[in-house]
């Protein structure tokens, strides 16, 4: 999947993946896509909740073993 910016949050625990994601989103333009890599199992629920509450769109979640990769499209302001 194509993306405009990547944030590596591997090894980090709650709430750091969300905080890094938020920072990453602030550095791209509306409708651009942010890729976030996390190893925190809690991040699956958290990223869904984050997107539902903020209006950013979770386009795709890839999961292998203990790594979760999120593709998030920044909401149009």
């Amino acid at each position, binding site marked *: 999947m194509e993306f405009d910016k990547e944030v590596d949050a591997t090894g980090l*625990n*709650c*709430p750091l993946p969300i905080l890094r994601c*938020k920072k990453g989103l602030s550095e791209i333009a509306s409708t651009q896509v942010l890729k976030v890599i996390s190893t925190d199992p809690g991040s699956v629920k958290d990223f869904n909740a*984050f997107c539902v*509450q903020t209006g950013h769109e979770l386009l795709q979640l890839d999961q292998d073993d203990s790594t979760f990769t999120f593709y998030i499209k920044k909401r149009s302001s």
Partner: protein
Amino acid sequence: MAKKLALIASKGSLDWAYPPFILASTAAALDYEVQIFFTFYGLTLLKKDLGDLKVSPLGNPAMPMPVPTPNFVQMLPGMESMATMMMKQKIADKGVASIEDLRTACLESGVKLIACQMTVDLFDFKPADFIDGIEYGGAATFFEFAGESNVNLFI
């Protein structure tokens, strides 16, 4: 209009420093407007130097210990420092943020930190010991924001 979160931080130990800063920084990431009112021992969390934050197993029977440790052992000199050292090691090992990092995240995302003026006076805290960018206020100041907040928590 943005949702609002009002927190009271009343505890000043290493473990209890986490909930207010985790919730505040996350809420800010969720576009909440956030204020934390620091009172009594919570004021410690506003100090420039957070190196003094400690965790004590004493009086906390739920604290996971590597071996069962009776109270009379927990009160021995050095036990508190040891528990604190172990906790900090675990925090680093598990990729949990430091309190400094979470507090910085709060400040960078516009969380308003308010020191309780009465307790500052009561404990003779020096404003020079606190980080820059905080405000001072009393109970009425807290309610000005808390009264129109969606979530209010006392920690």
